[in-house]
């Protein structure tokens, strides 16, 4: 086992992990962050997306030892049932959530995009979402939700 220390959603975390453990499993099984999903497991579907230093990455291809000292964010960073983030409210009001499996990752990608580019074009939104699949194919609603939230986020 090896101890890794990092920031998770604004809080300092220390966690013992196996040497070859995937960070996806650390989050889900050791830290109970089950909003990070295991879809394809080989970096193609995007459902395991997390933000490391505010940039989207695939947790399924990230070794746990690599997050030492880094800032990690999951969808829990954005808001909770009582205080939703403007992006979360927009996803609900625009019908951008169907089965919900891809939603946490979609929200994180959108959040990261708006941090860098508060008023993205439709093309820029599509480009940012190009590493995330929605098997319900609700892309139009997802793009509209991000457009409507842009400029209103924090």
């Amino acid at each position, binding site marked *: 086992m090896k101890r890794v220390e990092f920031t998770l959603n604004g809080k300092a975390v220390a966690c013992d992990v196996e*040497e*070859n453990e*995937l960070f996806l499993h650390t989050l889900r099984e050791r830290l109970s962050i089950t909003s990070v999903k295991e879809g394809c*497991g*080989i*970096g*193609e579907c*995007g459902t395991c*997306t997390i933000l490391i230093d505010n*940039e*989207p*990455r*695939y947790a*399924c*291809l*990230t*070794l746990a*030892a*690599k997050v030492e000292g880094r800032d990690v964010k999951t969808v829990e960073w954005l808001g909770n049932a009582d205080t939703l983030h403007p992006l979360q409210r927009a996803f609900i009001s625009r019908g951008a959530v169907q089965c919900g499996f891809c939603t946490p990752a979609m929200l994180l*990608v959108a959040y990261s995009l708006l941090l860098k580019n508060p008023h993205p074009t439709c093309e820029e939104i599509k*480009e*940012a979402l*190009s*590493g*995330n699949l929605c098997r319900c194919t609700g892309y139009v609603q997802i793009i509209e939700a991000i457009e409507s939230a842009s400029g209103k986020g924090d």
Partner: protein
Amino acid sequence: MLSSLPAAAIVAGGTDLVVRMRNGERHSYLIDVAGLSEIAGITPEEGGRLRIGAAATHGQIAADGTVRKACAGLALACSQVGSPQIRNMGTLGGNLVNASPAADSLAPLLVHNAMLALEATGGARTESLERFITGPYRTTIGKTELLCSVSVDRLEGYEEGYRRVAKRAAWAISRLSCAWALREEGGLIEDVRIAVGSCTPVPFRPSRAEDFLRGRRREGPVIAKAVEMVADEIREKSGLRPSFAYKLPVVRDLLAEELGGRSCS
């Protein structure tokens, strides 16, 4: 460290290695080089070349102002690798050491006469990209060597491009790709460099077509002749393959469109 640990592997972005490990590949030790400042960053070199650290990610290269000006084809190719997440993780060094014949960075790096700097405890060496890659997923790298950086020609004042064909725009492997750089002087092609990727076992520069184009006008019949020469060189390298019924016409059209520029289209 690499020479003292048995069965050690180097990991940077992990986008290839972790997938292979999930499929059963075993390593006793992993050495993470992603945070090594010595092999990071993009810096000008003496002699007008640009040094790209092996740990630079595709995203960093695609966004770098100097690369976009002096190696525009490489910036374009890196911006089309995988997905945004993969581009934030995968590194140029990893792409080269993995040596997939479909790697997007290879063709533009050939256009920029890329030279690789490798180091081991026993000493350092440099090698051209053309010699480094010996076949699909095969390179000359030794078990205890680390790829540190890639040095490329700055082609300011050149027109450059990169085009790829894949099954879909995002998150797909290139089925074929072309990179090129061209400079005109007094109405004639002063220098031209072309590289074709994903078509032959190793991406290559069709030197006969390049030689033919130098000193000629950039006009329809000249480009058409050069494009035929490229197709001949692909056939010589690969022999006849079933996929060529599709690939060769596409390479011809892509190159004719790209090299023809506005004057021929």
